[in-house]
């Protein structure tokens, strides 16, 4: 009986691993931003909430507390209608409301057990899907940025 269970578990393992990997098919469609965070600011678009860090104030020493708050709210307003559209033929459109969309030819790769999204010549972003949400993490010069998207049904 124990042997059967081990064989059964071993058979299930590849499916579990596959379910976690980001395949091009699982990316296909429209994703809308729901969270943004970096070392200076955290934006929660569902709750319309802005949280700034000490670094945010340090980076803008000329601004008053009120102006810092305004800057954070402006960033929230600017990013709240940001979309990614993963199209056929490995094409990605990124757009925010009325602004001219950008498009990229994208590629997916795996390095050190992590999956990366390469957009044209830009630095690859780590990506993964967890609980139906798409996470995009970019680290440049030790400073990280995390964006979370939710799929939009049409």
């Amino acid at each position: 009986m124990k042997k059967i269970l081990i064989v059964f578990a071993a058979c299930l393992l590849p499916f579990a691993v596959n379910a976690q990997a980001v395949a091009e098919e699982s990316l296909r469609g429209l994703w809308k931003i729901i969270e943004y965070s970096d070392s200076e600011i955290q934006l929660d678009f569902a709750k319309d909430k802005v949280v700034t860090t000490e670094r945010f104030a340090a980076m803008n020493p000329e601004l008053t507390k009120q102006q810092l708050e305004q800057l954070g709210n402006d960033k929230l307003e600017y990013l709240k209608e940001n979309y990614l559209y993963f199209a056929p033929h490995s094409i990605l459109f990124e757009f925010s409301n009325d602004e001219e969309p950008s498009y990229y030819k994208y590629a997916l790769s795996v390095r050190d057990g992590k999956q990366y999204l390469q957009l044209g010549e830009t630095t690859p972003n780590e990506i993964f899907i967890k609980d139906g949400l798409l996470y995009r993490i970019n680290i440049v010069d030790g400073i990280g940025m995390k964006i979370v998207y939710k799929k939009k049904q049409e």
Partner: protein
Amino acid sequence: MKKFLTTLMLCLLFCTMQSQSFTEKSLHGLWKIAAYNGGWVNIDFIANTANLTEQAATLNPLHTLARQQESANRQLKEMRDRCLYFAPYSWIFYIGPVGAPSQDKYTLSSNAGKHYIDVDNTGPDEIYIKNGRLYWTTILGDMVMTTVYTKEQE
């Protein structure tokens, strides 16, 4: 009783008309090319056929039918797998296996029960959805070109 039935019929008619009404939301999503009628040629992208019509013989007497068939076959090859994506904020994305993708802004309008789409202010083309298929007709002089798209699931 008769008055009640008449009112009921009118209500049902109104509901039916509403369900067939053409809105920006009904366009949202990915549409793949299924057929093209260019007057002189009928292309069926699902059956993978390009057939000349009777008009082909009269279109350009200097071109032999064999050359027109060559041109039709080339069109079949070049247009195959082309997609349109109707995104939020009235963006339309053009996506194909070859060449760079592109995007434009579009507006919808209605006149005398017909619906029109104007892409990047190039003039209105008639557009409608019937049996889940999107019909897009462009008129250039005396040339009438209709492209048919089917909705893709993502």
